[in-house]
């Protein structure tokens, strides 16, 4: 059985959107480290991380688009990780 890789992001801070209109109740996750993203370009990851930090420092409410972008990226990275794990575990079993 494949061991969990260390850089699967903990996204349990993200809350489900409420039905209908209204602001999204999504919160950023302190453990989200975009620098660990292996497939996103370093420049794009840095840009997102800097924006994330800037909003955290100023206390200004982050635009929903940015929140959703970060969340979508976290999900994408995590899914990519588990896919790789799955493929790697198949290779190791076959070996």
């Amino acid at each position, binding site marked *: *059985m494949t061991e969990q890789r260390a850089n*699967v992001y903990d996204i349990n801070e*993200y809350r489900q959107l409420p039905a209908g209109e209204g602001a999204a109740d999504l919160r950023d996750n302190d453990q989200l480290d975009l620098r660990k993203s292996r497939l996103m370009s370093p420049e794009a990851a840095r840009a997102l991380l800097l924006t994330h930090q800037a909003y955290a420092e100023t206390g200004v409410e982050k635009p*929903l*688009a940015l929140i959703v*972008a970060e*969340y979508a990226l976290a*999900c994408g990275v995590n899914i990519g990780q588990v896919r790789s794990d799955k493929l790697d575990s198949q290779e190791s079993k076959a070996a």
Partner: protein
Amino acid sequence: MSNLLTKALSMITGAETVLSFSIPKKIRPLKKLTERELIQLESEIGRELFGPIPKGHRREFFNLDPKTWIWYEESKDASGLVHSSTTRYEVQEKGILKAQDGAQYSYIEGQELRNLSLAIQMYYEQVMRQIYKRDPKTGHQLA
């Protein structure tokens, strides 16, 4: 056609050309799966997130890579002509860029943004649990 779109369509159809649409063969549980087959399994979950699929229609929704989500719709008109559209949602620094059929680009907002966020959340949680047997919150193997 862009390489990314070609790759996305080959994930959907299993073919290098967009002109042939093959239905994936049944995936045997013990068979070694390719990345494409894993994505096809994920898309089986993704396509159901948006409600029933009309008869004769085909829909796919899946995560192609960490910053790209694909929505594909296909249908036949009364004359049997196949109509299809591919929408790519790409994560960028400013938000999520929507590219339709490789031609129209815009950052999504409002209800579409909320709907996509919800779809991604549902996709993520169900794919992690059902396909990879992982806790979506921690990534750990489910007991």
